[in-house]
C-alpha cells in the first residue's frame, strides 16, 4: 500500500510551479519534502490531498485517485496540519479535535459519544488530554500544533501531511513534536509527508527525502543516500559542509558560518 505521485505538474495560470513530480511513499514511512522558499513544497502538499487540482499527472493513495474522488473520500485517507493559524471562534480544543470526524458524518449528523471518545483517546495518546477543555485561541503555538495534529490523526490513519510543522515551535518543541509524530505514526503505520525547512531536522527524523528545486524533483530516495554534501549544496544553492556526529548522524552547516568559526568570531 503506497502513495504514488506520478508526473504531477501544476501551474497558476501560465506560471508553472510544479513540473513532472514523481515519487512514492510506502505505508508507515516519514517522508520530508525539502526545498527553498517558493520551490513548490506547499503547492505539492495541496495537490496531494486534492485542495489543488494538478494540471497534469495523477496521485493515487492506496488505490484512490485523489484528483477524481470527492472531498469526503479524500479526507478519510489524507489529513493535513496546515501551516498558518487562523483565528477562529474560541472553540474548546476538544471541539476542534472532534472536527476530525467530519468526513465520517452524514448530511445532518453531529458527532456522537463514540466520536468524542475517539477524540479523547487521541489526545491521551499525544499526552495532551489536559488541553481538552481549554480554549483553542488561548493556548500556546506548540499546544495548537498538538491539537491540530490530534485532529488530523483522528481524521485519517493512512496519510498525514504536515506543512512546515515546526515553524512556530521553540527549540525543544521542534524535536519533541517531530519525535512524537514519528513515534506515533511508525507504530500505527501512518505515512507522513512533511514540507520542512531545516535539512538537519529532516536528516534526523525522515526515512525518505524528496528534494524539490524550481518545481522539479532534484533527488528522491532514502535519507542516507540523498542527504549528501553535494546534494544539499545544490538544493540550497550555497556551499554546505557536513559534520559527522558520534551517533552515526550528520549535521549540515553552510560554509559561510564554518569559515567564520575558524577565525574564532574575531572580525578579520
Amino acid at each position, binding site marked *: 500500500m503506497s502513495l504514488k505521485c506520478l508526473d504531477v505538474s501544476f501551474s497558476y495560470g501560465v506560471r508553472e510551479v510544479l513540473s513532472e513530480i514523481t515519487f512514492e511513499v510506502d505505508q508507515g514511512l516519514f517522508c520530508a519534502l525539502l526545498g527553498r522558499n517558493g520551490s513548490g513544497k506547499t503547492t505539492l502538499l495541496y495537490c496531494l490531498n486534492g485542495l489543488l487540482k494538478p494540471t497534469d499527472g495523477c496521485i493515487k493513495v492506496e488505490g484512490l485517485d485523489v484528483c477524481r474522488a470527492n472531498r469526503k473520500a479524500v*479526507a478519510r485517507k489524507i489529513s493535513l496540519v496546515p501551516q498558518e493559524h487562523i483565528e477562529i*471562534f*474560541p*472553540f*474548546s480544543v476538544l*471541539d476542534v479535535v472532534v472536527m476530525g470526524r467530519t468526513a465520517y458524518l452524514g448530511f445532518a449528523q453531529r458527532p456522537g459519544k463514540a466520536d468524542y471518545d475517539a477524540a*479523547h483517546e487521541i489526545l491521551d495518546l499525544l499526552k495532551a488530554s489536559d488541553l481538552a477543555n481549554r480554549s483553542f*485561541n*488561548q493556548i500556546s503555538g506548540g499546544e495548537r500544533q498538538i491539537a491540530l495534529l490530534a485532529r488530523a490523526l483522528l*481524521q485519517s490513519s493512512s496519510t498525514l501531511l504536515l506543512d512546515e510543522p515546526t515553524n512556530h515551535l521553540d527549540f525543544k518543541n521542534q524535536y519533541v513534536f517531530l519525535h512524537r509524530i514519528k513515534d506515533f505514526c511508525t507504530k500505527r503505520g501512518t505515512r507522513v509527508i512533511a514540507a520542512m525547512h531545516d535539512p538537519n531536522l529532516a536528516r534526523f527524523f525522515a526515512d525518505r527525502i524528496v528534494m524539490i528545486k524550481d518545481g522539479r524533483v532534484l533527488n528522491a530516495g532514502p535519507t542516507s543516500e540523498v542527504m549528501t554534501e553535494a546534494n544539499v549544496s545544490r538544493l540550497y544553492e550555497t556551499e554546505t559542509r557536513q559534520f559527522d556526529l558520534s551517533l552515526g548522524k550528520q549535521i549540515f552547516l553552510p560554509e559561510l558560518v564554518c569559515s567564520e568559526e575558524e577565525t574564532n568570531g574575531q572580525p578579520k
Partner: protein
Amino acid sequence: MSGTAFSYRSLTKTRSYRLMIILAVLLVLMFILSLRIGRVSISMSELGRIVSSWVFSNPTDPQLTGKEMVFTLVRLPRCLLAVLLGMGLSVSGAVYQGLFRNPLVSPDILGVSAGATFGAALGLLLPGSSFAMIQVLAFVFGLTAVCMALAIARVVAVRPVLVLVLAGLVVLSIFNSSITLLKYLSDPYNELPAIVFWIMGSISRAEWKDIYTAVPLICGGLLFVFLLRYKLNVLSLGDLQTKSIGLNPSIYRFLFISVSSVMVAVSVSTCGQICWVGLVIPHIARTLVGPNHEIMIPVTALIGGLFLLLADTVARTLTMAELPISVVTAFSGAPIFAYLLYRNRGSGWT
C-alpha cells in the same frame, strides 16, 4: 484525566439544557403577558375564556366580543410574528457570523435588507399596487440582491469569503442609492412619508395572512439550520481547513446563505427593517453558552424570539403612539452590544 474532562463536558451540557428550558419558559410567559397588555388590556380570566371559546368554537360572552376581536385579529398574529421574526433574524445572523468567520457580520451584509427595502419602495411608488404586491416585490428584490452578490463572487472566484463581503458591499450601495433615487423622485406629501415609515419597520401590520406565509418559510429555514448546525462549526474554520477535513465549503455556504436570506427577506418584506437583532442576539448566545453551534443555535433562536417579542411589546405600550420597533431594538441592543464588547475583551475575538 478523560474522566474529569467528560464530567466537565456533561456539566456544561446540563447547564446549557437548563438555560434552554429557562428561556423557553420565559418565552411562554412573555407571550402570555404580551397577549394581555396593550391599548385594550385583557385579564388572565378573560384570556382564558377567549381561548377556550376559540378552541372549542363556542360562542363567546357578548361582553367579550370586542376583546376577542382584538385578541384574534390583532394581538395573536402580532405576537406570533414577533417571535418568528426574532428567531429567523437572530439565527440568520448566527449563520452569517459563522460563515464569514466574523462576529461583527449581520445578515444585511449581502444586501438582502437593502434589496427588500428597494422592492418595497418601488411597490409604494407604482400606481395601483396593493399591500400584497409591495410585500412580493420586497421579497423578490431581497433575494435578487443576494443572488447578485453571489454571482459577482462566483465570477471573481478567488478568496471566496472576502470577495463575498466586497460583492455584498457593491450590491448594498447600488440598492441604497436606488432607494435614495426613489425617495427623491417620490411625491413628498404622500409617497415619501410612506417609504420612510415603511423603512422604519413595525410589526403592527401583522395579519393572519402574514403568518401563513412566514410560518412555512421561517420554520423551514430554522429547521434546516437546526439540523445542519454542526456544519457551521466546520465552516467557521475557513475554506482550506473545511476542505481538508472533508466538507465542500462552497455547497454548504450556498445552502446556508440561501436559507438565511429567505428568512431575512420574509422578515423585511412583512415588517420592514428591524436593526440589531441579527447582530446582537448571536453575541449574547455566544457569551452565554460558547461558540459551539450545536448549542448556540437553539439558544440564539430562543433569545431572538424573546427579545423581539419584548421589544414589540415595549414599542406598542411605552407611549400612546406606536414606536418604530427598530428604535426599541437599537436603543436596547446597542448598549448590550457595547457591554458584551467590554465583557469579552479577553477571549481573543472581539
